[in-house]
């Protein structure tokens, strides 16, 4: 099969393969180097372990000894016991089962909305910072407009509408809440990516790449984007944590995930009335939110130190 473009392209192709092969070897050592630097950060390693445990608990939630929605007339508002590890709530439901089941919801929403924000934010920031001019002006005004939406207010209004209008079919699903949080949280990423692109596009290595014949897309993805990875990673990890907090806050106020579906936020709201007599109700979901978010933040720190080419010692 003859590659399009004739012998010149064939040569270029061979050179590319040669270079590609070499860079693959480099990438492997880079990966190992990055991993080693990551695990040298002890808090980050601990965070990763905690996060994996929490993730595992969410995945294995259906295996909990009790159904999170099973009511019981006899075992109401019990303290922690061998049978019910975290006790039971006012309807006799097992708090432990509800806490791990709530984790599934909260983690899914956090990850999904961040993935969405990442896709939108990096694209917009990269285009604006790289091309400048009217593209930059237009995209940044769009970002500004989104930044002007009072996030929590819009979320509450949208959540109420979803609950009361024809979109009611989506009520039990986490999709709308994840989409709404994602669509309203990409702006910080876009601004940071734009700032990095703005600074890096004037650098000599970009000029060199252009002189060597690299196209815009290649310069953006292969030459500038790696320089922006550090800030993007830090911002994205913070965003996962922030999304979990937003979801929990909404559910705490009663506008997020609706009971009986448990989420860490609405469990906390449930617990508030019994806080003096049974503080474990509030402490269990509160601690889960806290541990998750803190572990994510530590992992983000570790990743930044590991990915930042300057911090190489």
């Amino acid at each position, binding site marked *: 099969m003859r590659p399009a473009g004739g012998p010149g392209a064939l040569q270029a192709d061979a050179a590319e393969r040669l270079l590609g092969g070499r860079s693959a070897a480099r990438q492997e050592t880079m990966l190992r180097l990055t991993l080693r630097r990551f695990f040298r950060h002890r808090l980050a390693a601990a965070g990763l372990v905690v996060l994996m445990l929490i993730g595992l608990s969410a995945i294995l939630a259906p295996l909990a000894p009790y159904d999170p929605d099973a009511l019981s007339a006899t075992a109401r508002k019990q303290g922690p016991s061998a049978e019910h590890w975290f006790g039971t709530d006012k309807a006799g439901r097992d708090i432990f089962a509800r806490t791990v089941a709530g984790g599934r919801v909260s983690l899914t929403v956090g990850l999904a909305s961040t993935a969405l924000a990442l896709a939108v934010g990096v694209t917009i920031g990269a285009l604006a910072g790289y091309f400048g001019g009217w593209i930059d002006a237009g995209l940044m005004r769009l970002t500004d407009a989104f*930044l002007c939406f009072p996030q929590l*207010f819009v979320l509450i*209004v949208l959540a109420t509408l979803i609950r*009361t209008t024809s979109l009611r079919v989506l009520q039990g699903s986490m999709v709308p809440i994840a989409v709404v949080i994602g669509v309203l949280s990409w702006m910080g990423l876009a601004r940071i990516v734009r700032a990095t692109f703005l600074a890096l596009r004037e650098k000599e290595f970009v000029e060199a790449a252009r002189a060597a014949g690299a196209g815009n897309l290649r310069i953006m993805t292969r030459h500038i984007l790696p320089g922006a990875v550090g800030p993007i990673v830090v911002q994205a990890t913070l965003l996962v*944590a922030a999304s979990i907090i937003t979801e*929990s806050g909404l559910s*705490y106020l009663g506008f997020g995930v609706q009971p009986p579906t448990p989420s860490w936020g609405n469990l906390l709201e449930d617990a508030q009335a019994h806080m003096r007599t049974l503080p474990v109700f509030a402490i269990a979901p509160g601690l889960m939110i806290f541990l998750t978010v803190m572990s994510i933040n*530590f992992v983000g720190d570790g990743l930044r130190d590991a990915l930042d080419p*300057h911090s190489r010692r």
Partner: protein
Amino acid sequence: MFGYVLRRTLWIVPVVVTVAAVTFFLMYRAPGGPWSQEKPLPASTVRTLNAKFGLDKPLWINPEAVQAKRDDGVNNPLTLGRAYLDSQFFNYMIGVFRFDLGPSYASKGAETVQSVIIQKFPVSAKIGLVGIIFAIVVGLPLGVVSALRQNTWIDYASLFTSTIGVSVPTFVSGLLLLLFLSQNFGVSPVRRPEAWEGLGRAYLLPGIVLGLGTMSYIARLTRASMLEVKRQDYLRTARAKGVAPQGVVRSHMLRNALIPIITILGPAAADLVTGSIIIETIFSAPGLGREFVDSISKRDYSMIMGTAIFYSVLIAIANVTVDLSYGFIDPRIRVRR
């Protein structure tokens, strides 16, 4: 420069129009009118109320009103044009630009939305103010010290503290604080309504709880940004030419490291103001955030729209101010005309 300031300021107008239009149509789509309650009102009452608040008018344009004016022998194009736009949407939008957000439906028009905002917002603003002052005054030095003493115990302690601070949502820290204070000291930080007048001690706890996250965020960002700057060549140059260490930190490091921090101050201020919805609920503060939550459950549509527009204007002003401040801090970003 003046042209740029003007342009950025005028940018607020389309933003407000967009937010107003979006919230208007969201509310228009919402089921149940503002008068639907547990016990339905008689149809005649609903009709009277609708007529009183102009809710019987067409949504977009009002050709019938033009015809009526014509029949009365009015030919002034301005009057006719106004009659043509005598609709729910345009009446509302015209009102917004006159700072008239209409009557609060829940009070059956006894109060206007703007009077409720003027009455309730100061409480939210004061909580937010305490929060942002706390965040900057504690967060910035923490980040600077952390970066200057990188990888020492001070750095680790401050990183650990700020990571905890970023990780505890306000409703967790607020609730636990309430629990802790009331069980161990028998003090309840929930104050009587009078305590929220002026700027009393009542604002201290909610403000700090609200500002905790932003404080930690600022500390982390300052540290990251200072470390970035620390490796720049111009620092070596500055030291080599004999600038005193404090001078290097102040004019060469901090000044450059501040740029990303200022970027987040606008959104952070916005977060603090809107985040006070939860804080006001926990500490039962009579602010605009709680009013908003109440108005949702009361289906007070005009109040919901008014509050959303009010907050977006506020956030727009904060963002524009931050944008304009770049030029003063970083001459490199000064805008080309």
